[in-house]
């Protein structure tokens, strides 16, 4: 069954919010686990939509990429200063 995009978006944001005390960055796999019946490509589309809406941001070490809530985490303030 295809994912309901709006419901999936809400679930992803709620998941990030619920973990926000301990974690500010998440692996792609953390999100696929939320939707065990969906294909990873569908989950990726939802994440891309959230990035385009500026609700999520990519975080990259150079070798690994993670997703985080916009504005969350230690670096967000430092990096906005330009």
């Amino acid at each position, binding site marked *: 069954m295809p994912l309901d995009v709006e419901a999936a978006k809400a679930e992803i944001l709620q998941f990030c919010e619920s973990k926000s005390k301990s974690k500010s960055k998440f692996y792609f796999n953390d999100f696929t686990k939320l939707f065990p019946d969906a294909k990873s490509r569908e989950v990726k589309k939802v994440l*891309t939509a959230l990035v385009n809406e500026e609700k999520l941001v990519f*975080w990259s070490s150079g070798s690994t990429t993670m997703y*985080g809530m916009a504005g969350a985490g230690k670096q967000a303030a430092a*990096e906005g200063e*330009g």
Partner: protein
Amino acid sequence: MAKHKTPLLDQLESGPWPSFVSDIKQEAEARAKNEKGLDYQIPVDCPEDLLGVLELSFTDGETHWKHGGIVGVFGYGGGVIGRYCDQPEMFPGVAHFHTVRVAQPAGKFYTTKFLRELCDLWDLRGSGLTNMHGSTGDIVLLGTQTPQLEEIFFELTHNMNNDLGGSGSNLRTPAACMGMSRCEYACYDSQELCYNLTMEYQDELHRPAFPYKFKFKFDACANGCVAALARSDMAFVGTWKGDIRIDQGAVAAYVGGEFAPNAGAHSGRDWGKFDIVKEVVELCPSKCISYEGGKLAINNKECVRCMHCINTMPRALRIGEETGTSILCGAKAPILDGPQMGSLLVPFVEVNKDDDYQAIKDIIEGVWDWWMEEGKNRERLGETMKRLGFAALAEAAGVPVDVRMVQEPRHNPYIFWKADEVEGGWDRDINEYRERHLR
């Protein structure tokens, strides 16, 4: 005079090799002079501060960079790697020093116009320092600040018809050898396949969804000019079916000294008269060549495509007529479990442009689906293969198990049968067995 004293770095310049320290000093000087009258968009003394922070790291024996960050261009999850100095007051010119990766042209064919535009862009909006090329093969622009990123991206994509490369848990910028454009050994058009797959997998290149990095490389023959076999998770190495074509007349001409061996390479010293037995026959790794009575013969069944005989006598020996590519998976550098070379997944597949390389794309997507499902975070394909076994990969890719799937020639540790692949499964009648085999 230099902004910072750098005695430790200065020492590096005294060795016999070209020095990156000298290069950075040269750029620092050029920026200070500013002969073109540029309105530099990041601090003019950025190369000076780069030398300063490096000297400090040498003195302290620890790094002063903070690596990684949320910087990037809008909608892209790769191509920009954030870097910050942890002593920004001492070295304001490199307080931000982000790296930008840019897709290189297939086969690294550049026009001087493109190179000039690239240098002009980087002089204006970056440090002026580049790394041509990074180990993935892409153009690496070293050192800029966050507000410049969108400007650089706009210029690259709108005016230079280029794009950012891959970084992070993405498909990395695919790399190809020169292939058919200049090389008679090419078994397939590596540049065309590289371009086609780059365009097909744009989403994988720019929006990360893999467990870790993933690299494609395309070598049109086993000489491996982009080292696909050693440096890419999925290597496409050109190969052929059938026999190596032999021109016995040209063989005689090599033996007679009429043609220079190795197409005239290695001619800097006198190696003596060409000795076909010593230089070709005895160096064949699978001992499948013989030279008797002035005739060269090859037992093609035993040939392992090392390319040595063809490289030595290119006018006499040519690759077979039916050509395609092998696909090898799992090469990686030694971060975990030591380095690995690629393992042969597909011995031969046609490189067919007419069906848009569908056979190859089916294999790629099968491998990706499996790795995305089974791979742990930060686990390369080669590590997943090692953990779950090669047969699992072959099944995921939809490739039948084959005796040619070898770790190295004549060594095949991977294949395990499942019960449903064996007639009768694992159950058998012990009494019937005992009729033929005494206890």
